[in-house]
């Protein structure tokens, strides 16, 4: 059940991000979750709702997109999405491929409502 810790981390990151955007109200937070990240999206959504309860941000939506593992072929350089754990390069049939994504647990975006334009320039979380 580490989804609860992850939900708290999301809330903390949103809080930090909003410091540089005074007056903005968060509406939706977008995440990219790799299929190999060991994170259950339903469980995360449930935990996220739970950590929002009693805060000013109840109703803040979570938009979690699950991403397939991608690999790069060491022989021909082709990049491909992995289906059913088949790590063989579909272009050249090469067996030597390495993972380039699939275990990510990343932020994508934060959607906010503002009264006017954003007070400060848009910045990344870190």
């Amino acid at each position, binding site marked *: *059940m*580490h989804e609860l*810790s*992850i939900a708290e*981390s*999301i809330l*903390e*990151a949103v809080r930090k*991000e909003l410091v540089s*955007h005074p007056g*903005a109200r968060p*509406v939706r*937070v*977008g*995440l990219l979750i790799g*299929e*190999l*990240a*060991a*994170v259950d999206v339903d469980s995360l959504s449930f935990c996220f709702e739970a950590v929002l309860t009693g805060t000013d941000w109840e109703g803040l939506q979570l938009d979690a997109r699950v991403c397939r*593992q991608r690999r790069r072929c060491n022989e021909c350089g082709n990049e491909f999405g992995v289906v059913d*754990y088949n*790590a063989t390069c579909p272009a050249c049939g090469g*067996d030597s*491929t390495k*993972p380039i994504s*699939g*275990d*990510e*647990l*990343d*932020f*994508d*975006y*934060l*959607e*906010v*409502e*503002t009264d006017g334009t*954003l007070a400060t320039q*848009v910045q*990344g*979380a*870190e």
Partner: protein
Amino acid sequence: MERLPLKSKVLNENQIIAESLRQRFREHGVLCLNLISSPGSGKTALLERTLASLSPETRVSVLTGDIQTDNDAQRLAKFGFPVQQITTGGTCHLDGRMIEKHLAVWNLDEIDLLFIENVGNLVCPSSYDLGEASKIVLLSVTEGDDKPLKYPSIFFKSDLFLLTKVDLLPYVPFNADVAEANARMVHPGMEIVRASSTVAGGLDAWLAWLKRRMVQARQEALVSAAEITG
């Protein structure tokens, strides 16, 4: 409505701590290995037999994580090496901050090999980088040989798969070849070692792997020191 791009990791705080730990381990020549498995796969038994086989001059330390009790630390302290229990009090995994806090009382210059025995759990620990050089996943033959497919994340992220309790293979319906093939589906080219903590010579392949990695870590520390002194 405005959409702000957010380009960071969700567990960024943990990642920052883990990277700083990794840097410190590299500078001090510490080989840090993070052992992960479900409860009862034999992490503590493996560490007991490993510690018993090391010469007293080996500079090894152990951090062992559990939700409750210091039973494992007591078991491991008998071998005379520094051991600390990390009791999480409910949390299902160790995180970078717990490691950083417990390392504060040790001098990294006096450690060559640091074992972290994670909380018994095949899922959650895989999300938390502890600054280790490698994650090692253990799976025992009394579990299912399809576990690598059911819990792909940890097999994907681990450098070594230790198949434990192989002395029990004649008595259980577990196909070791199938388990290994499943692991290599999830993680092509994965290193796999079969081990038994109860029979003579059962850990030879594991200890050879460990020795190789310690030599490699020492060489990397020399390179790192040379870079620092310019």
